[in-house]
Structures are given as C-alpha cells and as structure tokens.
C-alpha cells in the first residue's frame, strides 16, 4: 500500500462523471452499473487517482419511454449510493427545464470542479503544506465520461450525436469505457475516425465479470412480477414498491 501512496503524489487527479449514460441505460439503478465503476478504478493504472464519481440522472424531457420521474430516479440512485464513500448523485441535469446534451453536462461539472479547486487552493495557501492531510497535486483535475462499451456504438447512430460534441467529449474530457457482453470495443473505435484519432483518451476497462444486466431487464422483471432481489439494492426495491413504480408497461 505504501508503494501506491508514493505514486499518487505525482499523479493527476481525475474526477469521473459517469452518469448521463449510465442512467440513460439504467433506471432503476442496477447493481451491475455501480460495480463497473468501482471495479475499474481500484485497478489503478498508476497514472491517475480517482477521487470522485458522479451519477447524473437524465432530465425527464429526454422523452424515453418508461422513464420514471426524475425525483424518483434521483432518490433511487441516492439510496443505492448510501454505502459508497466516493460516488455521489448530482441533480443539476435533471433539474434543468430542458434536456441537455451530454457535452454540456460535462462542461458544467468541469467548471464546478475548477471552481472548487480554486476555492480549496485559496484556502490552502495560508496553511503550510505539511499540515495538509492530502498530498499536493500539481496537475489540474480531469473529468471523464464513464460508460459501457455499448455507448461507443451509439456514436454511430445517425443524428443522435453532433459530431462536434463527440469530438469535444473525447478530446477535451475523455472516456472511460467498461466492457460489456456482446460489444466489441475495438471495432467501434476503428469504425469511427474521431474515436480512432483520440483513442489515447479512451480507456477500456475490462469488467471483473461479464454481465448484460440492464435496467431494461430489471423493469421487465418488475412488470412481470418477478423477483429483482440481488440485482438492485434492497433499499431501491422497497422504494419502487412504496412509490408504485414500474408497475405496468406504459406505451
């Protein structure tokens, strides 16, 4: 453990913004999606230290069918994250009047990050460095989009993404992409000129277990009155029951 600490002193910090896509594909919030974040970042490539994960549920105006109200989705994520020390839920995106493109969510959170950095370093300059518990980082924090490999495929869907947004995401921010059963990460990269060009900024994480568990599956099981225990946290199951969510297939 001592070795790892030494390395961290000279690394850049990263903050992850995972959610937009995780929530896009997973409401209610399934266990497999949280696990994919955690499993990646304890691997520690030695270049980065992950300090925070953010889950940002999509806005109600996104218009996806079967989307439960944002207040519920936010509440369920919060319940799911109760035991996590480093991942938090952020409501900004869901509270906006309109649906916002992913790149704008990233920009918002990045400016928030910088703002917090500035506040911290202003406060810190009066305190001798040895007294500060956390190691001194010299590089600016990075914010990366965390998603499953299936999101890379959606970049190919006509009119779903603006090209300039894809570029900004991979160029200015970066992707952390977790492997998913049935999706060929390398293929998706090679099929796109932009992704190929910025592939150094696209990190593939091999999941500890292969799982194609999805929120769609969980909702389906709920509609059919089947058990979803151990697929999502007990607290989320109770919430769904108490608020009568995902009861029948809404067209």
């Amino acid at each position, binding site marked *: 453990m001592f070795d790892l600490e030494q390395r961290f002193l000279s690394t850049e910090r990263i903050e992850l913004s995972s959610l937009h896509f995780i929530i896009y594909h997973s409401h209610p919030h399934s266990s497999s999606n949280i*696990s994919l974040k955690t*499993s990646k970042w*304890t691997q520690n490539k030695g270049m980065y230290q992950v300090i925070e994960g953010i889950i940002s549920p999509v806005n109600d105006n996104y218009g996806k069918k079967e989307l439960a109200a944002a207040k519920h989705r936010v509440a369920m994520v919060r319940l799911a994250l109760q035991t996590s020390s480093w991942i938090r839920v952020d409501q900004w995106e869901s509270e906006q009047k309109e649906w916002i493109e992913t790149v704008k969510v990233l920009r918002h959170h990045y400016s928030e990050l910088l703002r917090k950095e500035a506040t911290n370093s202003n406060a810190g300059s009066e305190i001798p460095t040895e007294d500060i518990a956390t190691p001194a980082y010299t590089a600016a924090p990075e914010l990366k989009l965390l998603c499953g490999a299936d999101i890379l495929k959606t970049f190919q869907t006509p009119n779903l993404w603006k090209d300039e947004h894809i570029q900004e995401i991979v160029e200015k921010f970066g992707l952390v992409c977790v492997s998913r059963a049935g999706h060929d990460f390398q293929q998706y990269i090679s099929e796109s000129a932009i992704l190929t060009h910025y592939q150094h900024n696209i990190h593939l994480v091999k999941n500890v*277990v292969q799982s194609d*568990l999805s929120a769609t599956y969980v909702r389906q099981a709920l509609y059919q009155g089947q058990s979803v*225990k*151990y*697929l999502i946290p*007990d607290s989320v199951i109770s919430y769904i029951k108490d608020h009568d969510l995902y009861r029948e297939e809404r067209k």
Partner: protein
Amino acid sequence: MACIDSSMENLDNRKEVVLLACGSFNPITIMHLRLFELAKDYMNETGQYNVIKGIISPVGDAYKKKGLISAQHRIKMAELATQSSKWLEVDTWESCSKDWLETAKVLSYHQQRLEAENFNNSIVSPPSPILPGGKRKRIDDIDAGEPKPSAPQKKGPPELKLLCGADFLESFAVPNLWKPEDIATIVAKYGLVCITRSGNNTKKFIYESDVLWKHRSNIHLVNEWITNDVSSTKIRRALRRGQSIRYLVPEAVQQYIEKYNLYSTESEDNNAGCILAPFLKNK
C-alpha cells in the same frame, strides 16, 4: 406469460417445495442468491408449486477442494448474505460432518427432517384451513356464518428438490465424481431445478443420458436470460488482484471478507495436491 396472482388463489392445491442448494459457497455470491429467486419465480409461475423455503448447505472442509477456506467462515458469510431474506436459510449439518458426505445423503437428511416436521405439525394441532396468503385460520375463529371447513386433510411434507446450475448437472458426466445410483436417486426421488443460460445444451445433455432422460419430467430447466457471470472463482481472483468485488457479493459479505482478509494467494493453495473427496471415495 400470465402472471398468477397467488394471493387470490388457494395455495392449498399447490405442492409445497423446498429448494436445497449444495456447494462450496467459497464465497457465496449474488449469483447463488439469484439462482434461488429465479427458481422460486419459475416454480411458482407454473401454478403447480409453492416454494416455501430455500436451504443453503455449504460443503464440509473434508471435500478438499483447492482454495476452499474453513466452513466456519463460509457459513458465516452465507448467513450474512441471507439475513435480509424471508425464505432462505443456511444449514450446517453437512459442514459439521468430519467426513465428506454425498449429495444424496444430504438430500436424505433434509427429507427426513421435513417429514419429521410435518409429522410434528399434524399432531400438535389438527391441520386448519390455509387461507390465501398462507395464514392458518384457527378453528375457533371461524364465524358461524361461514361454511365449516371440510374434514382436515393430512398434508404431506413439502417436496425437496435440488437447486443447481447447468455446470452442476453436467458434472454428472465426470468419471468417478458421482455414484450412478446417487444420480438416479437424486433425479428419481427428489428432482432438480436447474438454472441454465443455454437451455438447448442442457436439454441435449439430458437427452444423451438414459437416467436423466427417464426422469426428465422431474428436471425443471429454468432459463437465465441475462449473462451474469459472477462466480466464486472470479471473486477470489479479483480479491487476489486487489480489485473491487463490491456489488458482486452482498455488502455484509464484502465487509466480512475484508475484515478477516479471507482470500489470498495462500488460501488459494489450500488443499493443493489433495484429491477431491468424491474421487477418493469412488475409486
């Protein structure tokens, strides 16, 4: 598939079922727990069965499987994993035995226990009608206006079935691992509920075995539609590599493993060079 609203239906007509899962549970994972949930949903949805209990029976240390840590820990983790469950329980009879016990023996033990409980229940109080929802109504609670219950029928013990995955079933083909008479007993006398991801392969396996084919009506195949590849082996490997197993095992289990530092390169070497107990016995 129509979802049967079992709260309205008279559950009396259904056969009660208890599911027993044997295995190392080294450690128990969410996959093990999911097997129970999938099996229960499947059996109940047929309309013929009412699954009332699930029993987890971790194997004893005498099994001598490589990487097997002490039963005491494996049992504790299984208990932590099932504390939030209303119908799952952990049984230590098998693991308390000094010698390794064949699965057929474990089934036989639990069958006898269920029969004994059933016998005790019927002499302590006469069987009272079971209302929808499973609550027994006391004889003296019956209102005058309600029709009197018919002469109470003696309910037999629940049916005990072995819950397993497809790999367990297919291990029947491993030479000297199973006694042929045990395989026959398991499928003929008890029955299997087998969770499988590739139903066709499992059906083929059953087709190619005379004894399995003969008792195929007693082998219930349950499809697992999503890949959820959590296995104890992968969990132990992840732990050795310092990778997170959060959300792959119940929270309490993950904390327990961390607290006692249960799995390591050393523990994976437990029983290295030992012959698995059934192979020794079936020589």
